[in-house]
C-alpha cells in the first residue's frame, strides 16, 4: 500500500471519530457552535484527504455533508436528529470504504460511486427547500449537435464517456471568483476535454485577460448527477447530457488478495497432479488450504461451501469436484448445486484491528537507550569468549558469566517492559465507538438512554482493547434492550425519563476493570430461576442450593437468555455466554451485580497485558506442548484401573468429583501412546467453569513465554492458542484448552 493511502486511512479514521463525537455532542446541545465548527472542519479535512488519494466519490459525499453542515452554520437549517443521522450514515459509509481499502491494499472500492450517490440522495431529501440536489432531475434527451461533435472529435473516449457537459461561463465570471476550468478539473473520470473560444481569438494586445472567452466541453465517465452536484453553483451556465443510462457493472471479485489467489491457484496445480500415490492426502490438504485462504479473506460462507465440496470430492474420490469449487472461488462465482447449500451466512461487520500504533516519542527513546545498553552487553560476551580462549580459570569465568547474565536479565526485562508500554492503548480507542451505537440502539428500541463514559484514558494492551468491542457491545445492548424500562415505565417509577448507562474503566494493580452500569429495573432472580429450569440450564434442587450470586451468574451459562422478544439488536441466540467466553479468552473474568429497581452492573476484570504467559510444558505423542498455567489446577497421577469409561470417553474421580479425561495425544490426532504406564499423568485444568483432565506422557517445566498468536492462514487452526520458541530453537505449541474441551 502506498504511503499516502496508509496515511489517508489512518487520518480518515481519526477524522471520522472526531466528526462522530462532534455530531453526537451537537445532537445533545444543538446550539454548540464549537462542536458544529469542529464537525464541519472534520468533514472538510476528510474531503481534502480524499482528494489527495484521488477518491472522487468520497470527495463528493463529504462535499454534500459539508454543504448540509454549512447550512446549519448560517442558520438556514436547524439541527434535527434526522440530519445528524444522515451525517452519521455518511461517516459509516466512509468507514466501509476505508475498511475495503484496507483489505484491498489501497484500491478504491469499486462500488464507491453508488455509495456516494446514495448519500447525495439522502442529503437531497433533507434539503427539500431548493438545495442544489433539487436540480438533479435531468431528462435523457436526444443527442444534440455539440454532443455528437464532441464524441466524433474523441472517438477513443466515446466508449468510456457516460455524460457530456457543455459549460459556457459568462464573460464576467472571473470577477465573481469563479474558475471554470478549476471546477471542471474536479469532475470524476474526465475522458476528454475541449476548450473553444466563443469567437475567433483577437490579436493578443486586444485580449481582455479578465473576461472569459471560452466554452468548455467535457466527456466524463461519471454520472450526470455527479456532474450536476459538482457544478451546482453554475448550473445556469451548464448543459449536462447523459449519454446512456449508467450501469452498475460488477466485475471480478475484489475480495481476494493477490497472495490468496496465488495460493488458490497452487492448490489447483496440486489437484491436477496425476499421481495415484498420496492422492487422498493431496485432496484433503488442497481443500483445507483453500478453505483457510477463503476464511482468512473473510469469506466464511464460501469457505464452508468449499469444505462441503471437499467432503463430496472425498466420498466420490474425484478431485475434479474440489478443483471446480476452487476455480469458482477464484472467479468469485457461487457454484450452483453445492451439496446442502445453505446460502451465505449473514455477514457480521468485520472488526478491523488498528494496524498502526501511535506511540509516545519518550517510549521509543527509552527503547533506543535500551538497544544501546544491549549492544554493550553483547560486546562483553565476545570479550569473555576471548578470556575463555586464553585459558582463564573456569571458576572465575563462570562467576563473570553469571554476573553478566544478571545484567542481561535486567536489560531484557526492561526491554520487555518497554515494549509492553508501546503496545498499550487507551480504552478510549474502543469506548469512543459506543456513544454512537448506544444512540442508535436507544432510538430503535424507543428507550431513551445516554451513555456516560469514564476513565477512557485507562490503558491496556492493544490486543485486549481491540478484543473488547464485541463483548462490551453485547453487554450494552442487553442493558438497553432488557435493563432499561421504557420512558413511560420510568416516569411511573419516578425515575428520570432518559436512562443513564455508565461505561467506566479503572486500573487496579495488574488488572483493568471495566464496568457497564445501568439505572434500569435490575435483574429478577425469580425469573432467572424459572428460565434456568425451563431451558434445562439447572435442576430445581441445584437451584435451591444456590446462593443469589450463583443464580445471577447463570446468566452467563450457555443456553441461557431471558429475551422474551427477539429484537433486531439482542436476543439473536448469542447470549451472555458469548461475552464470558470472549473475556475468558482474554484471560479475564466477568461478573454481574444487580439491585431490583436500581440497576445492573456488569464488571469485566482483565489483565493489563497479554504478552507474557506462564505455561507448563507437557509431552504427548512424543511432542512437547504448552498449557497455559493459569488454567492448570493441579497435576495428579491416576492409576489406570481408576479411569472409568463413560460412553465413548473416559473419566476419573478426584476428591468426590467426576472429571472428564482426554488423552492429549489422541485428541491431537497423534494416536494413542503404545506403552501405558501403571499410572496416567493427568493435568487437571479449570475450563469453562468446570474441571477437565488431560492425560499426558510426561510433565515438563514451568516457563514464562512470549506467546505469539496464530496469524494468517493458521488463524483458524483448532486447539492452538499460539506458539513460542524454546531455548533450543524448537517451536512450542501452546494449547487452547477451551477449544480442546469443547
Amino acid at each position: 500500500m502506498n504511503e499516502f493511502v496508509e496515511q489517508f486511512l489512518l487520518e480518515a479514521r481519526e477524522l471520522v471519530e472526531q466528526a462522530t463525537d462532534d455530531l453526537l455532542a451537537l445532537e445533545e446541545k444543538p446550539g454548540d457552535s464549537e462542536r458544529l465548527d469542529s464537525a464541519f472542519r472534520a468533514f472538510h479535512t476528510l474531503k481534502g484527504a480524499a482528494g489527495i488519494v484521488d477518491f472522487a466519490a468520497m470527495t463528493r459525499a463529504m462535499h454534500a455533508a459539508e454543504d448540509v453542515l454549512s447550512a446549519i452554520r448560517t442558520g438556514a437549517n436547524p439541527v434535527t436528529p434526522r440530519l445528524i443521522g444522515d451525517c452519521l450514515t455518511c461517516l459509516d459509509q466512509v468507514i466501509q470504504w476505508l475498511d475495503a481499502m484496507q483489505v484491498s491494499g489501497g484500491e478504491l472500492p469499486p462500488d464507491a460511486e453508488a455509495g456516494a450517490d446514495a448519500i447525495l440522495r439522502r442529503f437531497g431529501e433533507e434539503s427539500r427547500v431548493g438545495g442544489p440536489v433539487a436540480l438533479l432531475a435531468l431528462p435523457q434527451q436526444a443527442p444534440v449537435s455539440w454532443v455528437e461533435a464532441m464524441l466524433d472529435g474523441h472517438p477513443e473516449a466515446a466508449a468510456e464517456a457516460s455524460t457530456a457537459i457543455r459549460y459556457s461561463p459568462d464573460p464576467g465570471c472571473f470577477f465573481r471568483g469563479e474558475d471554470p476550468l478549476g471546477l471542471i478539473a474536479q469532475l470524476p473520470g474526465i475522458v476528454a476535454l475541449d476548450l473553444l473560444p466563443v469567437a475567433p481569438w483577437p490579436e493578443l494586445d486586444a485580449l481582455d485577460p479578465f473576461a472569459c472567452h471560452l466554452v468548455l466541453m467535457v466527456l466524463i465517465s461519471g454520472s450526470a448527477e455527479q456532474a450536476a452536484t459538482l457544478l451546482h453553483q453554475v448550473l445556469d451556465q451548464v448543459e449536462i447530457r447523459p449519454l446512456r443510462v449508467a450501469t452498475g457493472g460488477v466485475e471480478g471479485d475484489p475480495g481476494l488478495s493477490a497472495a490468496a489467489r496465488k495460493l488458490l491457484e497452487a492448490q489447483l496445480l496440486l489437484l491436477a497432479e496425476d499421481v495415484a500415490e498420496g492422492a487422498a492426502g493431496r485432496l484433503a490438504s488442497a481443500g483445507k488450504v483453500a478453505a483457510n485462504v477463503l476464511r482468512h479473506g473473510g469469506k466464511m460462507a464460501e469457505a464452508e461451501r468449499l469444505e462441503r465440496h471437499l467432503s463430496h470430492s472425498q466420498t466420490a474420490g474425484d478431485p475434479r469436484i474440489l478443483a471446480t469449487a476452487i476455480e469458482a472461488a477464484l472467479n468469485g462465482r457461487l457454484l450452483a448445486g453445492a451439496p446442502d447449500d445453505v446460502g451465505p451466512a449473514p455477514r457480521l461487520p468485520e472488526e478491523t484491528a488498528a494496524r498502526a500504533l501511535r506511540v509516545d516519542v519518550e517510549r521509543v527513546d527509552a527503547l533506543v537507550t535500551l538497544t544501546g545498553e544491549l549492544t554493550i552487553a553483547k560486546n562483553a560476551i565476545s570479550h569473555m569468549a576471548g578470556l575463555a580462549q586464553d585459558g582463564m580459570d573456569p571458576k572465575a569465568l563462570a562467576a563473570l558469566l553469571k554476573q553478566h547474565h544478571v545484567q542481561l536479565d535486567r536489560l531484557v526485562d526492561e526491554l520487555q517492559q518497554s515494549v509492553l508500554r508501546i503496545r498499550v492503548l487507551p480504552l478510549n480507542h474502543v469506548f469512543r465507538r459506543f456513544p454512537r451505537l448506544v444512540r442508535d440502539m436507544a432510538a430503535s428500541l424507543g428507550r431513551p438512554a445516554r451513555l456516560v463514559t469514564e476513565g477512557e484514558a485507562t490503558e491496556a494492551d492493544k490486543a485486549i482493547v481491540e478484543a473488547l468491542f464485541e463483548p462490551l457491545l453485547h453487554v450494552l445492548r442487553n442493558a438497553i434492550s432488557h435493563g432499561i424500562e421504557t420512558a413511560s415505565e420510568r416516569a411511573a417509577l419516578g425515575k428520570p425519563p432518559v436512562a443513564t448507562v455508565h461505561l467506566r474503566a479503572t486500573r487496579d494493580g495488574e488488572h483493568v476493570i471495566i464496568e457497564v452500569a445501568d439505572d434500569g429495573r435490575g435483574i429478577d432472580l425469580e425469573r432467572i430461576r424459572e428460565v434456568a429450569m425451563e431451558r434445562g440450564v439447572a435442576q430445581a434442587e441445584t437451584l435451591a442450593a444456590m446462593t443469589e450470586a450463583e443464580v445471577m451468574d447463570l446468566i452467563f451459562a450457555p443456553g441461557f437468555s431471558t429475551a422474551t422478544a427477539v429484537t433486531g439488536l439482542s436476543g439473536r441466540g448469542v447470549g451472555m455466554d458469548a461475552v464470558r467466553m470472549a473475556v475468558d479468552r482474554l484471560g479475564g473474568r466477568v461478573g454481574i451485580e444487580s439491585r431490583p429497581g436500581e440497576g445492573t452492573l456488569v464488571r469485566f476484570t482483565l489483565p493489563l497485558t497479554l504478552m507474557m504467559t506462564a505455561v507448563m510444558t507437557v509431552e504427548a505423542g512424543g511432542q512437547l506442548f504448552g498449557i497455559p498455567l493459569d488454567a492448570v489446577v493441579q497435576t495428579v497421577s491416576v492409576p489406570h484401573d481408576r479411569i472409568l469409561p463413560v460412553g465413548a470417553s473416559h473419566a476419573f474421580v478426584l476428591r468426590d468429583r467426576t472429571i472428564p479425561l482426554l488423552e492429549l495425544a489422541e485428541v491431537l490426532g497423534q494416536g494413542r501412546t503404545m506403552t501405558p504406564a501403571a499410572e496416567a499423568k493427568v493435568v487437571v485444568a479449570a475450563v469453562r467453569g468446570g474441571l477437565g483432565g488431560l492425560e499426558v506422557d510426561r510433565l515438563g517445566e514451568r516457563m514464562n513465554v512470549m506467546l505469539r498468536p496464530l496469524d494468517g492462514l493458521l488463524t483458524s487452526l483448532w486447539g492452538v492458542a499460539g506458539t513460542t520458541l524454546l531455548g533450543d530453537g524448537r517451536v512450542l505449541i501452546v494449547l487452547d484448552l477451551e477449544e480442546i474441551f469443547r
Partner: protein
Amino acid sequence: MTVRLVDGVTIVLEGQCEIDDADPLLRHLLAAPHATVDWRLCQGAHTAIIQILLASKAVVHGLPDSIFLQRNVAPLVKKAQD
C-alpha cells in the same frame, strides 16, 4: 512570484497560477512574443491563464506538474500552436 520572465526568452509559471497572474503573463507575452512558456513547475492554472496560452498560441516547454493539466489541458495548448 508565480509568473516571471527569465533571461528575456523564458516565461516561468510556478506553483498555483491564479487570476492575478493573468495580467503579468499577458504583459510578458506582449513584451517578448517569441518567449517560451516553461510550465513544468505549474501545479494549477486559472482559466484565465490557460485562455491566454491558447489565445497567444505560446510555445510551452515541458509538461505541467498537475495530472489534470497534463492529461487534459496540455494537448489543447500544444494543438493551439499549430
